[in-house]
């Protein structure tokens, strides 16, 4: 924006102002919102091009990976994160578990009329910090405003593009009988952080979301030289649902060891309280890895040496099974199926 125009425009009232319909109109108000809020925090050379799309350099050898994710979390702010950093981490992780190096993000905002600038600024700032820390810039974006009551504060859709170098491709179809299953850390932290906040459960020490970008951890795992066959981030539906997806895709069965599953005591207690099972609760900064048995220990060591893999553990193994059941040896000594999530996880009443 030119110096001349700047003097003629009153800056956005970021303290008490609110979004109104004009901010999505495509006119001056929207241009101002983009400049004073989005570009200010997220700014980079591609976003600064100011065109309808971003013109990006060729990523070099390899195949492109693209993933998209819409974020509608409620509440928007929760212990350990907010919708802003979540929308960056979630999409980076979807790209990274494909074996790709995440390069760029796009961000689409659907904002409800009346949403406070102060909250929007907090969210955009959090996005910017997450993108910067991950080294993955937001290169293009979109803003829409819907009437009051037609949205829930703000929804954010991010799309990520990455490049997978030759030989690094991963897929949920690659698990083989004899393989070993690992997780990178404690289960259910994100989901329970949200649930505790949503239901106003006053725990003495709040459960923190694990929202984090995993491509750094994945690079460290790669560097160990282990033959990684499958990576996936167990988000909605939790570990149980993710493993069932992989078992189905690969046409195998799995056997977990309940005793080996890492779960924080506070998460376990909160789950107990609400009648939930941490196996089905969402994670936003954890991954499941499946590798050849011979490489399991070295992969585990590489994961544990990384800040995001301190609680990594070997939790089970893959075997041949035409029914593709994921089963578990319970800590109690029995055996049971770990099924797909059915419906929503509803608390039991007695």
């Amino acid at each position, binding site marked *: 924006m030119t110096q001349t125009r700047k003097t003629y425009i009153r800056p956005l009232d970021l303290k008490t102002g609110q979004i109104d319909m004009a901010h999505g109109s495509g006119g001056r108000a929207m241009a101002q919102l983009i400049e004073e809020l989005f570009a200010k925090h997220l700014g980079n050379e591609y976003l600064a091009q100011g065109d309808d799309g971003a013109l990006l350099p060729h990523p070099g050898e390899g195949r492109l990976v693209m993933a998209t994710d819409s974020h509608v979390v409620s509440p928007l702010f929760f212990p350990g994160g907010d919708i802003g950093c979540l929308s960056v981490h979630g999409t980076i992780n979807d790209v990274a578990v494909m074996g790709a190096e995440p390069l760029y993000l796009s961000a689409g905002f659907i904002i409800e009329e009346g949403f406070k600038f102060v909250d929007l600024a907090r969210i955009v700032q959090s996005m910017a910090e997450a993108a910067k820390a991950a080294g993955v810039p937001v290169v293009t974006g979109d803003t829409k405003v819907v009437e009051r009551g037609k949205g829930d504060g703000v929804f954010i859709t991010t799309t990520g593009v990455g490049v997978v170098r030759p030989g690094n491709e991963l897929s949920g179809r690659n698990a083989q009988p004899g393989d070993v299953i690992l997780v990178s850390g404690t289960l259910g932290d994100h989901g329970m952080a949200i649930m505790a906040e949503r239901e106003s459960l006053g725990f003495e020490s709040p459960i923190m979301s694990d929202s984090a970008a995993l491509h750094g951890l994945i690079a460290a795992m790669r560097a160990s030289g282990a033959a990684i066959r499958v990576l996936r981030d167990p988000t909605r539906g939790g570990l149980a649902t993710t493993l069932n997806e992989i078992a189905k895709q690969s046409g195998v069965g799995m056997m977990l060891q309940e005793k080996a599953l890492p779960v924080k*005591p506070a998460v376990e207690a909160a789950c107990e309280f*609400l009648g939930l099972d941490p196996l089905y609760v969402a994670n936003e900064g954890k991954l499941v890895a499946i590798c050849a048995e011979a490489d399991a220990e070295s992969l585990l060591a590489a994961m544990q040496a990384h800040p995001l893999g301190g609680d990594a553990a070997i939790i089970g193994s893959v075997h041949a099974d035409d029914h593709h*059941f994921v089963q578990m040896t319970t800590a109690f000594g029995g055996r*049971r199926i770990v*099924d797909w999530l059915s*419906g929503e996880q*509803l*608390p039991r*009443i*007695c």
Partner: protein
Amino acid sequence: MKYIDEYRDGEVAQTIAAAIRAEADPARSYHFMEFCGGHTHAISRYGVADLLPANVKMIHGPGCPVCVLPIGRVDQAIRLALEQGVTLCTYGDCLRVPASNGLSLMKAKARGGDIRMVYSSADAVALAQKNPDKQVVFFAIGFETTTPPTAVAIKQAAALGLKNFSVLCCHVLTPSAISSILESPEVRQWGTVPLDGFIGPAHVSTIIGSRPYEFFAEEYRKPVVIAGFEPLDVMQAIKMLIRQVNEGRAEVENEFARAVSREGNLKAQELVAEVFEMRKTFEWRGLRVLPYSALRIRGTFAEFDAEKRFPLGYASVPDHKACECGAILRGVKRPQDCKIFGTVCTPENPVGSCMVSSEGACAAHYTYGRYKDVA
């Protein structure tokens, strides 16, 4: 998790399992019914059945509050939301119970009904306070455990003078359900359901105490062991039942002494008696109409009775023809004996009520144990 982990200890489980094997007479078989859905869930989730010898069999009973809720009652709740425009509050498990016309409370919500999931009856009262221009109805279901909180909610609403809060009362009574099973021809005349004893309710018994079961033990000569909902509680209760059978005793024993007394929670009982009275009859899903088996709101609190406030006729609705929930709830059949189990009727599309709640016999078997059917 202290005081809970102790009751899930795998090593202790092995010790009790060994004791059960030693106690059980290989020359005979033992069939015990765990009445409560909470026990069914613990048995399935922890794999308790795998630790039992082959001649000790568990039969899942009807003690899952969602499973025994008749279609007609869910229909009433749906009508309240869709036709009367009330805000209907309910416990989460009720949302997916299949009702008439392919509906459920969840589907009614999608059609525009204002249906809210609450964690306690107090949440419903709070909602009524906050929205004085909306009629708020609490869909109260469950056995004796959930009845006192409903009584508290009604008394609270009365104290606050709320004119927009009422309760659709579907609370049922455990002893009536046990009588119905023991009186059923399958058990009494035909002997098609061999029943050597009961694992008695955990949470229900904290309210009503162990005394109400003394009648069953004596009248029907069936041992009852009241047990907690943790897997070790269940194992210990099974051991105690085997011992009673072996010694020819039929008594009420209390494994759950850490929470259950003979008299129960007298304060809660008084509260329930103040607010509720017996219904002459009540329809149970799967067990048909049982006399004196449920509660309704007393005349003194009539203004909080949704059945009196709104025009709600009750119409009994038969189950799906192929559905075996009735027989499964009485222990006559197992989930895998039902033709539509796992094919037409799944947790995603439950036909019968036993498939709805994770405490239901069919859902528990489908979710945790169906690998046994294909082995």
